[in-house]
């Protein structure tokens, strides 16, 4: 472990271990605040709207959506990719920073991972519901059956998708959960409520905090982290093959796997930033989620934004350079100009230009500016998926099949439903799970927090 004055302390405010536990567990112990109830109520209403939309979809058919015989995928796949992208950041954040031994991750990783799990859950709904016959969805499992040679098609990116997403969901959820075990034990030990004791005790898995346990805990983190790191890269690469493997102009692109992974990390980090600013503001966690955290995220975002800009430019260049008139049409006549000009430029401006403001220290320091930009990035990333899916499908090879696509209330309702589901999930996380990894923060407290803590600790020794 290193100690340096150069980087400054990671945890502010002269905290000791007890204070950390109290600070972070405070929202769990306190009664439910009114704003939380209101926000939860609204998100449940949104969720209910989504449930109605799903009910209509399943009971009447996909025909209640705006998709058609030329545009087979619409909002549902846009939103699927969007949520998967957001769901990317948590694990990416945790794992990569864990592997790189960036200690500042400890204040943020828990929230980021929680976000991942909820977002991937939202994402997984879309490909399921968008099936024409969801009641036969189990056909996609490679299970032994009596249907003779009928078996899943290993050539299909949708099958890869299914495997990648389920694996990712499983690993992210485990990684998140195991990380929380010591904290659940802390709550169990501190609480006076019998119910909480029982519930958190159950989830704490009998954690006692022995050295042996810590040792195993650490190894498990690294093992799961190692697996997850691969999945982080693979899951969105595979999602991108849904498009890259096809023959459709604008989809048939080798740049897609890295482009999608980077894009996903981009939107995920933006969402982390949004969420962290909210947590910091609402729960007054500025001692844990310090300016330097947001600063670091902003720096990552500006870097990724440059990659995104390069990716967009590459796509456009290749569309021209390939000499394929179909590709050329898609990019130049149906994106840069044409029916979907607004969506294209919304994407470029939100993703490639607006984040460039983070070059300025004042912008990085300003919570309002950072929050606004993070929202813009998420909107931009939504438009990116819109561009990829809709512009390519509405006008592909044969002009006779060209059409337009408009979502119906059902599709919009479904999306709103997942937003509600995400918000509700995050709110539950705020209330019932320590938002910051207590044990990990404690782990870095000694090592990196300077000031009087040092003196205290020194005195103690």
């Amino acid at each position, binding site marked *: 472990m290193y100690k340096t004055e150069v980087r400054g302390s990671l945890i502010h405010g002269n905290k000791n271990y007890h204070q950390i536990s109290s600070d972070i567990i405070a929202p769990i112990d306190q009664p439910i605040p009114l704003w939380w109830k209101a926000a939860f109520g609204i998100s449940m209403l949104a969720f209910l709207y989504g449930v109605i939309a799903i009910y209509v979809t399943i009971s009447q058919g996909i025909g209640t959506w705006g998709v058609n015989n030329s*545009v087979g995928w619409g909002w549902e796949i846009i939103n699927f990719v969007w949520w998967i992208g957001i769901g990317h950041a948590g694990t990416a954040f945790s794992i990569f920073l864990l592997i790189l031994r960036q200690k500042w991750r400890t204040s943020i990783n828990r929230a980021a991972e929680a976000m991942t799990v909820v977002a991937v859950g939202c994402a997984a709904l879309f490909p399921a519901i968008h099936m024409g*016959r969801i009641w036969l969805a189990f056909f996609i499992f490679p299970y032994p059956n009596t249907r003779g040679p009928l078996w899943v098609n290993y050539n299909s*990116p949708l099958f890869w998708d299914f495997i990648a997403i389920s694996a990712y969901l499983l690993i992210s959820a485990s990684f998140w959960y195991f990380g929380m075990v010591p904290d659940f034990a802390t709550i169990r030990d501190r609480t006076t409520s019998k119910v909480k004791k029982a519930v958190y005790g159950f989830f704490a898995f009998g954690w006692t905090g022995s050295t042996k346990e810590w040792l195993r805990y650490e190894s498990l983190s690294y093992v799961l982290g190692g697996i997850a790191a691969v999945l982080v890269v693979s899951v969105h690469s595979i999602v991108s093959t849904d498009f890259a493997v096809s023959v459709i102009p604008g989809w048939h692109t080798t740049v897609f796997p890295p482009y999608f992974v980077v894009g996903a990390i981009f939107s995920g980090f933006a969402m982390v930033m949004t969420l962290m600013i909210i947590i910091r503001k609402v729960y007054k966690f500025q001692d844990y989620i310090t300016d330097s955290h947001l600063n670091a995220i902003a720096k990552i975002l500006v870097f990724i934004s440059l990659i995104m800009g390069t990716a967009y430019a590459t796509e456009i260049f290749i569309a021209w350079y390939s000499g394929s008139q179909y590709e050329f049409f898609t990019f130049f006549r149906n994106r840069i100009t044409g029916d979907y000009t607004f969506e294209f430029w919304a994407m470029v401006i939100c993703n490639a230009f607006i984040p460039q403001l983070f070059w300025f220290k004042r912008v990085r320091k300003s919570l309002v500016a950072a929050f606004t930009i993070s929202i813009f990035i998420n909107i931009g990333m939504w438009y990116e998926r819109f561009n990829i899916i809709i512009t390519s499908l509405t006008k592909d*090879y044969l002009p*006779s099949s060209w059409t337009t696509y408009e979502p119906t209330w059902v599709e919009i309702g479904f999306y709103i439903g997942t937003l509600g589901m995400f918000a509700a999930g995050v709110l539950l996380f705020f209330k019932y799970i320590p938002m910051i990894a207590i044990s990990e923060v404690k782990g870095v407290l000694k090592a990196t927090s300077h000031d009087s803590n040092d003196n205290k600790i020194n005195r103690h020794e």
Partner: protein
Amino acid sequence: MEKKYWSNIELLNGSVDNSAEELSNDDRSLLDIIDEEIASKPSSRRNFLKFCGFSFAGAAIASSCENPVKRAIPYLIKPEEVTPGKANHYATTYFDGYEYNSIIVKVRDGRPIKIEGNPLSSVSRGRTTARVQASILSLYDGSARLKKPEKDGSPTTWQIADGDIAARLKDIAAAGQQTVILTSNIISPSTLSLINEFLSLYPGRHVMYEPVSASAMLAANKVNFNINGIPDYHFDKAEVIVSFSADFLGTWISPGEFAFRYGIARDLQKGRNNLVKHYQFETGLTITGSKADMRYPVKPSEEPIIILQLHREISRLAGQSSTTSNNQHAAINEMAAALWNARGKSIIISGSNDPDVQLIVNDINFMLENYGSTLDLNRLLLTQRAIDSDMDLLISEMSSNAVGGIIIWNTNPVYDYHNAEGFINGLKNLKVTVSLNDTVNETNEHFRYILPASHYLESWDDAEPKTGVFSLAQPAIRNLFDTRQPQDSLLKWMGKDSDYYSYVKNYWLTNIIQEDGLDWNSVLQKGIYESDIAAAQVNYSNTLLNDAVTSLDKPVAGNKNDIEVNLYTSVAMGNGNHANNPWLMELPDPIAKVSWDNFASISSQTANDLSVTTGSLISINDLRLPVIIQPGQADSTISIALGYGHIKFGKVGTNVGTNVYPLVSVMNDNRQLYLLNASVKAEGGEYPLAISQKHGSLEGRPIVRETILSKYREKPDSGNELHAEFEEKHVTLYKETVFPGHHWGMGVDLNKCVGCNTCVIACQAENNIPVVGKDEVRRTRIMHWIRIDRYYSGGTDNPEVVFQPLPCQHCDNAPCENVCPVSATNHSNEGLNQMAYNRCIGTKYCINNCPYKVRRFNWFRYATNEKFDYNMNSDLGRMVLNPDVTVRERGVVEKCTFCVQRIQEKKLEAKIENRHLEDGEIQPACVQSCPANALVFGDLANTESKIFKLFKEPRNYHLLEELHTLPSVGYLTLVRNKEDNNHEA
């Protein structure tokens, strides 16, 4: 547990073995046994679980498996000709009052389910048109067909009606009044003879009335040749065709037959290098105009003048006069020269209903020596017989006291006669009014007796569509409703005991087949009889020519900018009597690609003048219609399809579109399908139109490849250079698929395809394709498995048009197959791209990844769905379904199968007969129905097959071959017979 009673102490203790006694008790139910079982066994946990398990399982089975009652009653005595699961075919005749087709009806388990052309007939040649294909559905039309006799609006019986009517007819005869039989064209010799007999008993007249008639042509031919008919047009023998507003490939006179002949004239396969040169003058763009090499948009009022100019020019060339016209149309000189050079091998036709125009057209044909070569005066077309003035005369007679009764049959003047008011008023004077129509319509309600006719597939009849060409009609099913064919009614009222079947048979045996000594059954089986006719000398007399010239040779009345309205019969709707047919309603117009509406086509110039755009509403003499900006429409004109806007019909056709028959004007005793000075103004508001193809330009993509004749002669692969290039680049890392047996393929000759949409309906009928309705069509969800893409090239004033039929391409390297996660779509070892509907989970990935966009998704449960109230949601409507083809469930993807059921059927037949399949034996529905012979289907693995040779043609290419999808469908380039090609410019 039940209370246990005992009679003696042993029983109570269970020491007596009473099992024998219980077994003898036969009427114990299962529950008793269970009860006893429970009672007899100690109540252990094991037993408890056993019975619990049984009851849960039982309850689950009983509640979850809904067992609908299905009545499958076996034959007690099987009729000889019926084998369940095997279809019977009967030859019969389609004639709807305008269009004739000798057909073969496929009857499966007693239900007629499909119509094909009769290959023995020289008129049909095994082919049909869209309207004929769709007529099978009208048999099962529960909403439009009349189901029982009515008197004064309430149900009655045939006996009562027969008694009443016979008595009244006698009264009328006794009062010295006439009984009029008003029908559409009748070409049945037996029926005509019967009507004559009827009228000799009850004095009166037979009036034939057809809303869109060939009255002027009949009149002109009567004058010129003293014949009652229209010469047969041999487009196949023509080198130059000049057509003025005659949509002879779409709806004019005998479109199916003409398209067949036109296909021959457009044939460039097997090294042929002569093409017909086709000039078309028309107001709105038709499929015929689209096929023309030179097309000139003209206003209806300009047309007679151009014909006159052509007449003058030809007379000059013939040395009969030396005058030339001033300001003559730019095309006249070249066209006249071409015609003159092709003397005896040209055809001039006009769709005009002005006898003067037809006289001049006849004279041009005569000067060009076409009679006897391309225009056959011996075998006359007899399908058109109605004379317009007869109907007008009838109206005036009805208001006087001369007519006492009227019997109408297959006609709907209240809807389609321009003076409907006069007709309705005339009816009030009559003693008896009888309607023998078969469907609900606007006219029936004004009639006292409505005695529904049977559908033509339930009736006996015959027909003489051409001189000496006869065909028989036989019922393919017993009457579905309490209906009777009108001929039987006439016989009844004449007091005869025999039925019409014996009448027809007798008529044929004594008048038609007696000379050849043919047997009735063999003729009935073939459905047709064609007698040789001696070539008769026909004399030409042009006494009225000068009058005609004088009456036409005057400047166009009115302002040059007056908007002229041109009315036409559309390919789908014809004159409107099929308007309740959902297949035809949903069939997109071949040019505008609009279904479920008629609309006002205007040019972009006129749209600017009126400041309207596609979808705006305009009013034309108080009729409101949505606008379509139609490339190729003559400026200052509006074209509107007839046949829409029924206010009383079945559930499909009522209140769809606008009835424009009231715009018909009368000139020279004939009804003219145009209006020279309509008052047109833009109305506010948008109208949602269902347009199935929203983009018309090819965007410079090599999807349709075309060239011009001179270049083709130099280099047969002209315009198709890319094909060789892509063939050369054909490399793959993977092992190429080998087809050990058959390898099915289809060829499409773009030169022959006339865009008539027959294949679309044939496919719909064969493959149980649902009708989805206007809203769904608007959302690009039309279900047709084969579609005809229409592209424009060149300017919007007068573009070139191409039609491209597009079924599934059955790619041997199919993009759709790779991406299906559950292998629901896969490749057969015969090269078919097949769909396993049961396996499909509906991810729609295949739809996205199909570059041809031929895959269709079942967005809703179309069959048995109240919301799709067309034909599939009733037991009656579902009778038309083909049992060999799955009715697709909601949530699965479907598409063209190359009619795999037909392939399988013929393969099995060949196997049973222990022989090889013959080339051409298997015909998918589209190929079989195509009137122009543009589609070829066969085995690519057979080097002798037609399709194999067609794939070797230098004109052959594949759609998007640069994607290396290796389609099994080939297209032959389009070759236009013109000097320059807009396309390349």
